[in-house]
Structure formats: C-alpha cells, structure tokens
C-alpha cells in the first residue's frame, strides 16, 4: 500500500511525458548529432586500422553501444541540478509536509518520465546508426535481460545524481557538481567509448567504481550479451544502488533537520 502511491506518481509522470514528446525529440537531436560525430570518428579509426574488430567490437557494435549509453544517461535530465535548485531555493519545504519521502517521490516521477525519453533517444540516435552504419546483429530473445540491466543502470544513475543534488546544501552550487559528474561518466563510465579501448590500468580502476555500471555494462550486454556477465552486472548494479541510495537518504535526513521554514 505504501509503495502504491509511488506507482501512481510514476504512472502520472509517464502519461505527462507524452505532452512533452516534441521537447524530448528536440533534445534527442543533439544526441543524434553526437552519434553522427562518433560514426565519423569510428569509421576513420576502423579504416585506418584495417581490421573489422577493435577490442572485441565491430563498427556497428561501437555505434550501437553508444546509442544505448546515451539513451540510459540522457533519459532522466539533470536530476542533480533539479534537486540542488529545489534545496537552494527552499522549494524543498513544499515537499517535506507531504506524505511521501522526497527522494523516493523524485525517483518515481523521474522513472515515469524517463521511459518515454529513453525510447525517443533510442529512436533518434538509432536512426542515425541505422542509416549510416546499418543494423546490429541482435538476438531479440535477450530484450527482457537488456530491459532489466538498462532499468538498473537508469536507477543507479538516478541515485548517484540525487546524492550529488543533496550535497548542494553544503556546496550551494549543484551545476558545478553536475558538470563534473557528467564528465566522469563520459570517461570512467564508458559513456562515449567502451572502457575496453582504454589502457588496462585505467579500465581496471573504472570497474571498481559505480559509474561503469550505469552506462558501460548495460551497453556491453546490449551489443555482446552473455548470461554470466548479465548476472554479474545486475548483482553489482544492485549493490551500488543500495550503497548510493543509503548515502543519499542519510544525507537527505541530515538536510531535513537543517531546513528552517519561515512561512510567508
């Protein structure tokens, strides 16, 4: 019963997201453009190498990998900034007297809206990949597994962003944190290129961090599925979701005690 209200919040936001489909398409055009840039970069790299496979990836795998990471990472918008702004401006007070946990509410509403955004990005970036490179050699029976790991990736991305958003109370600038977090995802999360391309010492560090479980692993499973990797990935994703959620909730509880409402 307690969770049912969050289900309805999610459902309402999912329905609402259809009102802003044109807006989501406009935002996805940029992602399609980035895909276009990387198709060109990888085409040059593959041509120069004279090989059809680089670090276990063919050209279509490289591009479709990027389509998946972009769809996961951009589907939720800038949660760090949203939460940070609500805390800094004091809007948070409007949520504290409601019969729900602010962070779980935020998660439910974000997940609802991000489903539409995820598929629109997938469609736009996928169209560029399909036209310029062609289809991925894809086994459609793995779709349920991909949905699970992508969903967990989106959830982990949310918990990491919300932790940083709550930190805005102390740093008083959530945009700065968001900037850095996004770039860390680019590099250590394998958002732009698979970690396999980077030196071993670097990718070995990255697999110990949570960022790669939001983008790299779901996308690798999408282009190169193995059941063992799937089980290992979702277990570690769950581990990091629990750890980062706990950090966010503890920080938020500390924050709630520091909020002073002056009325008006």
């Amino acid at each position: 019963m307690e969770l049912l209200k969050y289900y309805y919040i999610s459902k309402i936001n999912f329905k609402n997201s259809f009102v802003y489909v044109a807006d989501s398409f406009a935002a996805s055009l940029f992602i399609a453009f980035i895909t276009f840039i990387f198709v060109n970069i990888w085409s040059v790299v593959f041509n120069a190498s004279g090989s059809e496979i680089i670090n276990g990836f063919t050209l279509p795998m490289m591009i479709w990998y990027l389509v998946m990471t972009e769809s996961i990472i951009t589907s939720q918008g800038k949660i760090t900034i949203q939460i940070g702004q609500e805390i800094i401006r004091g809007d948070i007070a409007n949520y504290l007297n409601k019969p729900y946990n602010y962070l779980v509410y935020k998660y439910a509403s974000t997940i609802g809206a991000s489903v539409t955004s995820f598929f629109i990005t997938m469609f736009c970036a996928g169209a560029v990949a399909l036209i310029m490179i062609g289809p991925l050699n894809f086994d459609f029976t793995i779709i349920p597994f991909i949905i699970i790991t992508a969903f967990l990736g989106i959830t982990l991305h949310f918990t990491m962003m919300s932790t940083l958003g709550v930190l805005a109370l102390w740093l008083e600038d959530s945009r700065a944190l968001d900037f850095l977090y996004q770039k860390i995802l680019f590099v250590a999360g394998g958002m732009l290129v698979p970690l396999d391309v980077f030196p071993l010492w670097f990718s070995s560090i990255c697999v110990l961090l949570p960022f790669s479980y939001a983008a790299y692993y779901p996308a690798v499973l999408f282009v190169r599925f193995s059941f063992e990797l799937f089980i290992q990935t979702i277990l570690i994703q769950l581990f990091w979701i629990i750890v980062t959620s706990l950090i966010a909730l503890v920080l938020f509880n500390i924050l709630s005690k520091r909020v002073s409402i002056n009325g008006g």
Partner: protein
Amino acid sequence: MADNILSEIKSNFSMIKQYWIINAKTAIEYKGSFILQTITMFLNDLLWITFWWLFFGRFPLINDWTYNDILLLWAFGSIGFGLSGTFFGNKMNISELIAEGKMDYYLTLPKNVLLHTLISKVNWFACGDILFGVIIGGLIIKPEQLPLALFLMILSTALFTVFGIISGSLAFFIGNSQRISKTVYDCVVGLSIYPTNIYDGFARFILFVIIPAGLVTGVPVELMRNFNIDQLILMITVTIVFVIIAILFFYAGLKKYESGNQIYVNA
C-alpha cells in the same frame, strides 16, 4: 552624421565599461561561487582532454591528427567559448528573454539593443574555460605563432557569439524555443570539441559551408598546422558574413517581438 556615429560608439563603449565594472564587482562579492565555477569548468575541460589522451593513447593518429592537434583544438574552443561567455554571456538567455517577454528592459533604454542584451550578463563558468585555454595554449602554441593564434581566437569568439545570437533569436519566430535553441547551440559547441578532420563529402560541405560550425575550431587548427592565406581570408569573410546575418536575423525577429507586459526586477 559622423559626429552622431562617433558619439554612439563612445556611448556603447562607456556602457560596456560600466557593465564590466559591475560584473567584476559581482565576481568579487560572490567570490566563493566565482572560484567554484571557475575551478569546475577548468576540471571539466581537464576531464575532456584526459578522455582524448586515453583515446589517442590507443589510436595515435586520426586522419593525420595527433593528440597535440586535439589540445590545440581545445585551446581555441575553450578560449573562444570562454571569451564569448564572459563578454557576451547573456547570449544563452536570448530565447528565454523573448519567450518570457523580458526584452522590454532592453527596448526601453536608448542603447544598442543587441549589444546591451549580450553584455548584461556574465557566465562565470566561462572564466574556467579561459584559464584552461590560456594554460593549454601557452604550453603548445609556439611564440612565433602567437599573433595568428590570437587573431584566430577572436574569430572563434565572434563565431561562438554569432551562433548564440542566431539560435537564441529563433524564439522570435517559433515562440517558446529554449530547448531547440539550446540544441542548435549545443550542436555547434559539440562540433567544436571533436576532431573536425573526420568528415568528407556532403557532411564536410554542410559543416564547413552551409552551417560553418567547423570553422569555429577546426579551421584555426588547420591554419596553425599549415598556414594558407586563402583559407584565412575565407574564414575572415565567412565570420563577417555570419556576424551580419546574426545582426539582421536578431533585428528582423525583434520586429515580431510582443511585450510580456510584465513588471520584474532586473537586478
């Protein structure tokens, strides 16, 4: 006639000077936020070149471009973007000002509307870009190439500003266009931070002639690698043409502007 033009130029310079003083005072007043944003953008750029360092570590040559060329590209990109954001920081808010009817403030004052709009806000993050660009540029640009590099940076700054004006002014014609304006501008910025020598055929024609986003950083890097007077003249010409297009586009749109009839504090 000449006196009027001279007096208007003097008046505009005086306005620019006053805004710089106010903006500098604001930075000093909120120095914590200013320092944080500057450091953040510096680290942001540093992470980007770390990405390219790792990438070029694996693939040392991309169509004859080395990691040094990417650093040069980033020097032009970050200084051009940084100067544009510092001196014309309000360009990114043009679509919002139009959609929310907030252009009234600039229209009611006896100043150049476009110039006044552009200079009235500073993007403090851009200072981090300038710092980063100066350090990277200082490390890789040879002293004898410095005059050319500085001139090309001015052109890059003009092009970043021009694309900001054009993308923001879309709101005059299509209403609430913040998202589209941002997407258009992001595409230009996006193109300026990736290698530009990877396109050929139709894509190259589009990106270097029709929407010359490739000129912002790509052509400056090519000119630094192999100087070619024809390419420099072409870049100057295209920049001037786009500055004129941006000004005409803004003022054509301004005729369609409808006041929001709002009262707000511009502090």
